[in-house]
């Protein structure tokens, strides 16, 4: 059995089987493992490898694409509190490739009592849940450490610290390159303009000064490019860093040789300028990405308290975050829910109103009853979805990476061929530098991240990055009426008496019957059961039956009640819910579903965008469609060549949401996470749907422009460089300019009116009206 290339390299250079570092003569360890003698650099690596193999996880060594970090038999302080928590989010250190995430998940799943173990490679976080009776956090962390990784409880401060370090070092490199480039340019200037007046001594001194300053620029500032190229080399994958690193190193080596030998051309100015321009593009990329993920970070940074349990009463002081989802029991205040809904205006909260975890209580203390805590809260569900979207690589980006790799191969071959043909290393370097397809790699990711962040700020959480591409093609929108166009909160509008009982007693009876149900219809009758019932039965899609003083009563559809009474109902207006007992018809109730305030505007906005709008209502009052009907309806549209977006809110919408090309789900509906929708409307604002269409369409247009520009640039410049018409400094400017143009284009506004006015207010009416 072959355990990867690492194994073959191992014997040749006596690198450690586990971490790939060279193992010293002294302290080297040999262990018979996986059918061969394996060399280890230290006892730590040996122990870790033995643990991995003993656990049956040797697949790790076959599938990994990077060696592990050194398992230095570290002495970890046992600082994990052994409390009675049952879930946690850990930051992992030492992740090198996706095989690492697999290994950690496998090891964790073998632990007794573990119920959930999910490792996210992109965010470097592990989500764990366990049975506190069988295991605790300490032993789970120990299990992770036993295979050579470090895990610490997720701590926003550490994350912040890491971001700061990254930013500082990027700025530092940028500064070195900028200042160095400036200075080297000055030394190069006399040689360009002197017309032979410059004495040979002075020229040589300038060259040496340039060498002295370019050296730190190359060795220190350009280190990320070399590190990236090394990584690509190790993975045996051609990437974007390889040509850059080769161009920089080759140019420097040739210039340095010319300086030392005293003959030949030097291009220190071009090299340091290229380094500066590339680093500037990188820095801009870093800042753009940070700004785009700031909204997400806010959401992820705050985690709901795990110490609470549903049913508990908590006082939330003003200025504090609500620790869990709940209902206000006492007090009147207002809450800022912008973190979750994107709605900037405070929402008034009084007794009976729901509070969402993560919102901020603004005015008075509130006493709340917890309904959902910890990982069950809406905030946690949204954060999980957002995390999934962030860790997923959209097909578009993958395709760009593939094309980029292909182009890199072409560039390398052309560079070598041109260099050999002309017998001039500078032409090879110019080809490498000028045609590196860096811009291609930048084209899509930034636009997508920005689009997601802007939509989240407007109350639409994109859970799959591929949704943008689908949204752009949508021709038809299917709307679920109940709960989507309407608030879904029914109110009693009319009572028609059909028998001898009077209205108050009929309502009281209906209210008592419906009190046991959580159906939206039930809530129309209001709270407060006053009549004691026996043997209550819920008949799906029909109604409720119970016994009152031994007599059977039913509430529900006309048919359901008719079965009990035995004769058809007396004439009545067109109403929806009936009440009857064994002897007679009692009453009919008309219910009204209030439309959302922005529904009319929303429909107009969709039509204005050239979208065909369809209604698919499951509302039994409107003789509605079953989930299967809705599914078939969407399927029919798709078969006719339409691309369908579905907006729904209930759990029974799950099949049709999955069937549609893009799906939107109301965040207030059934657990948004369960619906598996592509976009979750966290703010329950319909305007967010039209905004999603606008932003996605614009984002896709920007991406296409970027691709077109990047590819066109490369197509034009490759033959020019290969013909030797492009000098090193022109190559440097061309390459950096193409990246920066793509970056600037990616930073263009995504909305029609993304001005300071729009960004300071996100009131629904205004955001809707910009169309």
């Amino acid at each position, binding site marked *: 059995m072959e355990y990867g290339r690492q194994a073959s390299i191992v014997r040749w250079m006596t690198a450690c089987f586990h971490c790939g570092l060279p193992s010293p003569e002294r302290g080297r360890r040999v262990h018979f493992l996986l059918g061969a003698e394996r060399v280890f650099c230290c006892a730590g690596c040996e122990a870790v490898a033995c643990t991995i193999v003993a656990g049956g996880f040797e697949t790790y060594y076959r599938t990994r694409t990077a060696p592990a970090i050194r398992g230095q038999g570290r002495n970890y302080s046992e600082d994990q509190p052994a409390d009675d928590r049952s879930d946690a989010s850990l930051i992992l250190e030492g992740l090198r490739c996706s095989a690492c995430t697999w290994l950690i998940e496998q090891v964790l799943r073998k632990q007794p009592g573990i119920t959930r173990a999910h490792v996210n490679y992109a965010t470097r976080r592990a989500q764990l849940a366990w049975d506190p009776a069988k295991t605790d956090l300490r032993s789970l962390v120990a299990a992770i450490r036993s295979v050579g990784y470090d895990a610490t409880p997720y701590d926003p401060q550490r994350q912040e610290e890491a971001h700061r370090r990254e930013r500082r070092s990027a700025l530092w490199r940028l500064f*070195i390159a900028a200042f160095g480039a400036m200075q080297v340019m000055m030394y190069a200037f006399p040689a360009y303009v002197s017309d032979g007046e410059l004495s040979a001594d002075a020229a040589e001194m300038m060259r040496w000064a340039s060498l002295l300053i370019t050296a730190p620029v190359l060795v220190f500032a350009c280190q990320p490019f070399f590190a990236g190229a090394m990584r690509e080399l190790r993975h045996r994958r051609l990437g974007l860093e390889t040509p850059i690193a080769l161009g920089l190193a080759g140019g420097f080596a040739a210039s340095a040789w010319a300086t030392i030998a005293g003959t030949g051309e030097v291009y220190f100015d071009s090299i340091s300028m290229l380094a500066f321009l590339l680093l500037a593009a990188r820095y801009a990329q870093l800042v753009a990405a940070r700004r785009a993920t700031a909204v997400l970070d806010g959401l992820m940074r705050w985690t709901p308290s795990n110490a609470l349990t549903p049913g508990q009463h908590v006082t939330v002081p003003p200025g504090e975050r609500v620790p869990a989802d709940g209902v206000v029991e006492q007090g009147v205040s207002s809450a800022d829910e912008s973190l979750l809904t994107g709605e900037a205006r405070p929402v008034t909260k009084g007794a009976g109103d729901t509070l969402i975890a993560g919102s901020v209580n603004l005015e008075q203390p509130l006493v709340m009853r917890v309904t959902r805590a910890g990982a069950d809260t809406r905030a946690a569900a949204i954060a999980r979805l957002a995390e999934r979207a962030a860790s997923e690589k959209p097909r578009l980006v993958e395709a760009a990476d593939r094309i980029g790799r292909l182009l890199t191969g072409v560039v390398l071959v052309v560079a070598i061929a041109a260099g050999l043909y002309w017998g001039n290393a500078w032409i090879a370097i110019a080809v490498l530098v000028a045609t590196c397809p860096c811009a291609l790699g930048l084209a899509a990711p930034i636009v997508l991240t920005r689009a997601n962040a802007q939509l989240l700020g407007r109350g639409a959480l994109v859970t799959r990055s591929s949704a943008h591409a689908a949204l752009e093609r949508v021709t038809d929108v299917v709307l679920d009426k109940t709960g989507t166009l309407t608030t879904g909160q029914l109110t009693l509008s009319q009572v028609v008496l059909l028998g001898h009982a009077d209205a108050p007693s009929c309502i009281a009876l209906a209210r008592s019957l419906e009190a046991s149900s959580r159906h939206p219809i039930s809530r129309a009758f209001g709270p407060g059961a006053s009549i004691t019932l026996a043997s209550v039965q819920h008949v799906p899609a029909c109604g409720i039956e119970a016994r009152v003083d031994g007599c059977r009563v039913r509430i529900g559809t006309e048919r359901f009640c008719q079965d009990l009474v035995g004769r058809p109902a007396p004439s009545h207006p067109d109403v929806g819910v009936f009440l009857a007992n064994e002897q007679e018809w009692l009453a009919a109730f008309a219910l009204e579903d209030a439309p959302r305030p922005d529904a009319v505007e929303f429909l107009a906005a969709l039509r204005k965008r050239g979208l065909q709008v369809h209604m698919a209502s499951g509302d039994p009052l409107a003789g509605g469609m079953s989930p299967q009907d809705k599914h078939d309806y969407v399927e029919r549209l798709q078969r006719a060549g339409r691309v369908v977006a579905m907006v729904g809110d209930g759990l029974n919408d799950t099949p049709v949401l999955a069937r549609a090309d893009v799906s939107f789900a109301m965040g207030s509906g059934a657990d948004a996470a369960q619906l598996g929708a592509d976009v979750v409307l966290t703010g329950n604002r319909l305007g967010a749907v039209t905004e999603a269409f606008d932003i996605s369409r614009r984002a896709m247009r920007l991406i296409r422009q970027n691709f077109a520009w990047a590819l066109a640039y490369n197509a034009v410049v490759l033959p020019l460089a290969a013909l030797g018409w492009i000098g090193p400094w022109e190559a440097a400017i061309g390459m950096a300019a193409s990246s920066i143009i793509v970056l600037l284009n990616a930073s263009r506004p995504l909305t029609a009116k993304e001005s300071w006015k729009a960004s300071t207010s996100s009131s629904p009416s205004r955001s809707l009206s910009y169309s």
Partner: protein
Amino acid sequence: MESLYLLVPISVALVFLTGWVFWRELHSGQFDDLERPAQDVLADDDR
């Protein structure tokens, strides 16, 4: 022309000196937040 033989080495030394100063400023947090401090002058909260 002879002054070049003095000025060029001095300029090289200055580059490294400037680099060192920037390094110190960077690590004292001078460039950590490039946005908020610029808006601080506009805020009316200096009691």
